[in-house]
């Protein structure tokens, strides 16, 4: 998959790469807290992320400045996409769309 500089922001996430992408997609609709993210991701993919996986990915995204915690009274902070996170998500989705289109075109010609 061809990568851009923004796309590379998600590169060193290891096994948290896919959960991190799903979190970014979930937050693209607006700020959410952890429970809301798991429900949203389950609705999109049919997979419910465990808390260990969810917060492993969340901590990485926050440490790299791709998401940010919003202040909350009950300390269950909602998270929102940062500008950097939005650019990284757009870049990764563009790359995935390119791969998907290429695959579909080749399958159609097969």
């Amino acid at each position, binding site marked *: 998959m061809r990568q851009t500089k923004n796309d590379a922001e998600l590169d060193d996430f290891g096994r948290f790469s896919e959960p991190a992408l799903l979190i970014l997609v979930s937050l693209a609709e607006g700020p959410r807290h952890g429970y809301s993210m798991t429900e949203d991701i389950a609705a999109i993919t049919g997979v419910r992320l*465990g*808390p*260990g996986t969810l917060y492993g990915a969340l*901590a990485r995204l926050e440490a*790299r400045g791709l998401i940010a915690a919003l202040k909350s009274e009950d300390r*269950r902070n909602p998270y929102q996409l940062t500008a950097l996170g939005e650019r990284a998500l757009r870049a990764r989705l563009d790359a995935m769309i390119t791969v998907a289109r290429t695959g579909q075109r080749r399958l159609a010609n097969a």
Partner: protein
Amino acid sequence: MNWLLRLYPARWRERYGEEFAAVLASQRASPGLVLDVLGGAVDAHLHPQIQHSRSNSIEDLTGDDTMTLEMLQRCAAGGPRLSASDRRIASLLMILSALVMAVLYIGLTKIYPAAPAVQALFYASFPSLALIYGQTAYLRKRPRLTQVFVLAGGLSTMYLFMLAGCLIGAKL
């Protein structure tokens, strides 16, 4: 299930503990969920993200409060900040321990299949690895006797706890 949170580093719990507990409480208890949480705990010890966070970086702080804030952060972390060498040695010891436990478990299973004492070894091995990493890293500058006492005490307690669980499970 909230007791599993104790396996995470103190600074991590301080930052994510409450929201993590809320997500944990919302999911049905299962072996897969326990493994997910244990894997997350090992990852949080091996790859602590919080100290590298751009918003929490102690290096960004200036002024008279820097020393106080650094002391608070160290207390919240449950020990001194780890050097690369500390982390490397602790990781190596954890990997070696995992291999020893795996060999021991496989060998004992062949000799004593389905014995509660052997099953307890299996269940104790996961939290024990996190314990071995944490104690090795954070107690490295303590006297050798302290290290041995704390580590052996922690591992023994962990094993006895799991053994009690297995014995109760065998009776039911």
